């Protein structure tokens, strides 16, 4: 019998590949992007990262003691992710966007749809659906973050982590996160919880692809 993590990887593989093989992303990973588009991407990313912990908190607050290990996992994860929206803000400042402009930015409909779905799923679908969001975002960061950061450094002539600290560092930070996430996902039981995680991962891959496509 497949572990839940293996089942999640298999059942969402085409959604992951739809993200990976989207022409905009292929081009970004191969050649990087110009500074205007990178700024636009980071501005959207700021709002995704900003809502990451509030979504996790909303989900944790709805988990009974039947889900205690997952609730505690979320607490630790939130602690580690705390303040990461400021990393995005620093990167934006490094490429010429002032913090006031970042705060004033109105996210695209795709970012609103992604965040809106994640709050709704934690509230109305199943609190464990938050693990689907974590899975999709950690895959994007740990599998694609490294090559994308390398391409950005080349195309924008950035030195070290300047301007790519969020994307570059998450590529290595999330290595450990992926292993921890696998362990917690494999503890998950119940058909409705499993279905909610798969759905959430698919929706997150879908909306994230739309965000990248639109910039």
């Amino acid at each position, binding site marked *: 019998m*497949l*572990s839940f*993590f*293996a089942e999640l*990887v*298999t059942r969402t*593989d*085409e959604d*992951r*590949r739809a993200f*990976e*093989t989207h*022409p905009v992303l*292929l*081009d970004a*990973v*191969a*050649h990087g992007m110009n500074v205007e588009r990178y700024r636009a991407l980071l501005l959207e990313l700021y709002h995704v990262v900003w809502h990451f912990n509030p979504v996790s908190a909303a989900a944790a607050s709805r988990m009974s003691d039947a889900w205690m290990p997952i609730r505690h996992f979320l607490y630790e994860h939130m602690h580690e992710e705390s303040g990461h929206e400021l990393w995005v803000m620093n990167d934006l400042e490094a490429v010429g966007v002032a913090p006031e402009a970042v705060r004033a930015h109105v996210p695209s409909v795709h970012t609103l749809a992604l965040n809106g779905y994640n709050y709704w799923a934690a509230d109305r679908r199943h609190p464990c659906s938050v693990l689907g969001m974590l899975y999709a975002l950690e*895959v994007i960061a*740990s*599998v*694609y973050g*490294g*090559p994308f950061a*390398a*391409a950005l450094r080349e195309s924008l002539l950035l030195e070290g982590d300047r301007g790519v600290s969020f994307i570059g560092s998450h590529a*290595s930070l*999330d*290595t450990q996160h*992926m*292993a921890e*996430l*696998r362990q917690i996902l494999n503890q998950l039981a119940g058909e409705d919880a499993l279905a909610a995680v798969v759905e959430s991962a698919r929706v997150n891959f879908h909306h994230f692809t739309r965000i990248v496509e639109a910039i």
Partner: protein
Amino acid sequence: MNTTPPAIGVSGLLGRPYKTLRLEWSSDLRLLRVRTCVRPIQCYSLAAMAELQQMLGDISANPGLVRHFVMSSDVPTVFNFGGDLALFVLLVRAGDIDSLKLYGKRCVDLVWWMENAANLGVHTTVLSQGDTLGGGLESVLPFHKVIFERSAQAGFPEVLFNLFPGMGAWDFTIRKAGFAVANEMILSGRLYSADELHYRRLVDVVVDDGQGELAVDKVVREIDPRHRGTLAALRAQRLAAPIRYESLLATVDLWAESALGLTDRDLRLMERLARAQARKAGGAEEGAVEEIKLMELESAWGERRARFDRRNLSNDRRVRS
């Protein structure tokens, strides 16, 4: 696990709504022509392998229906890049050995079908017209007849990022070309031209670019009148030099364990290759093959540099003592 009932007859075989395969049927030769198309990066993704397995299962479920099976790629200049590198990175970073083994087993099941095709009354031919890397090369070796167009290149680059090809490369290369060639190819990670592969007996026929389809037709029409005898001989050939399923699976287990030991540096090299694939998929002329050659060069330079540094270090020590 696939629970879809097998297709019945030619219409059932051709009627599946495949996304990564294009099937054609020639009734005069009872020839099933399969073109693979995993766009934009032609590799063995989970979905592509599931479709291949489904199609091969359909052939097995209709004994005697297919006499000739021919496979090639619909993607210009690429036969197959092999494994899904992003999926490998994901599974390695997650430390998921079970999924790595499962992926390997799915690959082995495909080559195992090819290995046993003669028992099902099917003669198999493969045509490569471009880059055939890692798992892509492993997948062509069990075919009865391997045809390459002259500009196609192939090799097992896995050692460049501290891994080895784990889905049949050793077994099939040793059987076709001998132990020394398998050692040379797998441990060097270098790429070989079609002519070099022909010289090493891994490729049966090399033709000029654009002549591959004619070569396939020639092979099939030569085999067809002596189909029964050829398959009997090929079954005997497999008995004389058997490859065991258990050995293939044991190698997959070793491969998965090695993959879990990959370091961040190794994964970054794998990601470099994935970036090169993305460049080629985006229309660039240079892709994974050129990146592998660059890695070979860097690796060679690294060794020379290390030897140079070691020599300088020992000279320094001698001077100081």
